């Protein structure tokens, strides 16, 4: 059986691959959406922080001999902590100003971080091996699925849904959302709003770092990896609706799928298709698919 001249088996394979790529998009755009939704900061350093995650995994393995599983735990904490420092020392001074200042600051930070790593490690990138437990693959009949990719899809789904649940369904999430609506009143209830905001930024950054650790065995650990991805991820967030958690997750996976299909039918356009969709969505729904007009 064929769909538009492509055997259905090959099509299934492509869809699965699209879903896996989508899980990276979802994880990264989720962090961005959390930071924008709750802090109103357009975090352009997100790509660099994702790259830091991958380098963190590489350095832990090569300098301290700590493998992948430790990296999954330690790296997000450490990189998240650098996020806390950045928020305390720099971003917190910008909240009263226009969005643009946050964007410019984080963009500058990204360029500096990437430049430093490129100087030190070159552009070719560094090898990072897969953990032994996740090597190999399963023959699904229609395609060969590397176990590691299967793991990525499950892990990121769990993280995404847990984050959504915390923010939308728990008391803590309720405080957070209230604090962004009206910080004065929330503060009056005895809740430390500035600390909550700091930790939120740290959490968003940690999500980027986690995605970086998960990406390290698939892609080269390279200073450029974040810069290549960040524009796409921004498009995902814009399509989903800036700040919408569910929007980020759903469009992340969805656009991964669409990109995967484009790679079959017209591969040359696979990097552009997301921006074409972005244009169409913005024309029809300026606030994004899941966004609400403020």
């Amino acid at each position, binding site marked *: 059986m064929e769909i538009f001249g492509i055997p259905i088996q090959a099509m299934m394979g492509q869809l699965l*691959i699209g879903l896996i790529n989508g899980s990276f998009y979802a994880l990264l755009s989720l962090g961005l959406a959390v930071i924008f939704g709750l802090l109103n900061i357009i975090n352009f350093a997100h790509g660099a922080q994702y790259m830091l995650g991958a380098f963190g995994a590489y350095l832990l393995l090569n300098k301290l001999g700590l493998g992948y599983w430790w990296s999954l735990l330690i790296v997000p904490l450490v990189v998240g902590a650098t996020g806390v420092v950045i928020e305390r020392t720099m971003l917190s001074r910008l909240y009263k100003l226009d969005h643009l200042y946050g964007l410019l600051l984080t963009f500058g930070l990204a360029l500096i971080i990437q430049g430093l790593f490129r100087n030190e490690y070159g*552009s070719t990138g560094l090898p990072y091996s897969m953990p032994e437990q996740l090597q190999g693959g399963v023959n699904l009949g229609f395609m060969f699925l590397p176990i590691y990719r299967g793991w990525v899809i499950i892990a990121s789904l769990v993280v995404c849904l847990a984050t959504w649940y915390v923010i939308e369904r728990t008391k803590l999430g309720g405080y957070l959302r209230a604090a962004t609506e009206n910080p004065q009143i929330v503060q009056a209830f005895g809740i430390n709003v500035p600390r909550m905001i700091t930790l939120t930024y740290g959490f968003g950054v940690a999500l980027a770092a986690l995605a970086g650790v998960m990406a390290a065995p*698939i892609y*080269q650990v390279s200073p450029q990896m974040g810069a290549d991805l960040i524009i796409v991820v921004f498009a995902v967030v814009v399509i989903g609706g800036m700040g919408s958690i569910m929007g980020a997750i759903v469009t992340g996976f969805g656009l991964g799928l669409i990109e995967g299909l484009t790679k079959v039918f017209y591969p040359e356009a696979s990097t552009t298709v997301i921006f074409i969709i972005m244009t169409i969505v913005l024309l029809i729904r300026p606030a994004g698919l899941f966004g609400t007009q403020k």
Partner: protein
Amino acid sequence: MKRTLLCSLLAGMGLITATAAQAQVSDNVVKIGVLGDMSGLYSDISGQGSVLAAKMAVEDFQKSNKPNFKIEVVSADHQNKPDVGSNIARQWYDTDKVDVIVDVPTSSVALAVSQVTREKGKAMLVSGGGSSDLTGKDCSPNTIHWAYDTWMLANGTGSAIVKNGGNTWFFLTSDYAFGHALERDTEAVVLKNGGKVLGKVRHPTGTQDFSSFLLQAQSSKAKIIGLANAGGDTINAIKQASEFGIVKGGQNLAGLLIFLSDIHGIGLEKAQGLFLTETFYWDMNEGTRQWSRRFASALKAKHPTMTHAGVYSAVLHYLKAVDAGKTDDGTKTIAQMKTMPTDDPLFGKGSIRADGRKIHPAYLFEVKKPSESKNPYDYYKLRATIPAEQAFRPMAEGNCPLVAKK
């Protein structure tokens, strides 16, 4: 010895030297512009290493020839964008008094800068860019193509593989001038040797994820998956191919353009057994080792790629030609370079053809197993040497308008 050679050359080139004798090096400075990728995908192949190689050539030339003119080296980042590259070239030629542009990886940029160089009557020595069109339909009296080109890669790696039984191919091609040229040249070799091309995919440059393309290659059942791309794209493709069990499943990869720095980045574990063609490897002989040690000690122990070696060799020969011709006029110097035989420790003895193609031997290497490699950068085993006269496309087949058709 040097003087007799020079005299015979001068005598032979009566017409050129007659005008050159009056000409002089403009404002007594020869300015070399290294135009490379300083920050992107190809910056380990070109980048700071090319600047260093150019400076080493200047140093060596000054020591041996004691010229009566000054030499300066400047550099810039073309970001792999043809418009950025040609703008820098224009500014260099028009206001910054640059006489020659070297390196220029990324074929689309190299072709654009070659055009500007021709308009301005300056000189260009390409060692980073690969498209064989630079000495074919787009050849120019102001450009010399140095280290390698797509025709050479295709014939070196391609024909060796087809002859060893790899007769069905699927191409993963980078979607720009270089990838198209490499795919075209390799396809011709495959067909000529009785092979078949079962399919091809053109992917955007700088693609992170190759899994979709690899799945297509896998389902084509082709014996060989030809990687007509470069740098980070090739690395990601090789790395992800191992993840999808491509080689274990009986298909093989052919890296059509792989540099030493790429192998270093992939690691021998994943790269072992790959066949590749280069015109320079640091561990060939005493001359190349000595030069490469000097290079590595100045650049964080990184070893030179064939692009870096090409920049050194090209700049050295260029300076000799300026000295011999007593002018830094671009068109004249390029003509002068073509009349002089080349000789340096990196590529040995060679020559430059009328279409601008620098001629030297090429080598087919196999990447060592991790157990065979004793030191960092000890990566290649020599499998075959392709003699200079066979390594590059015969001039008559290139359709270069500079060369009269017979």
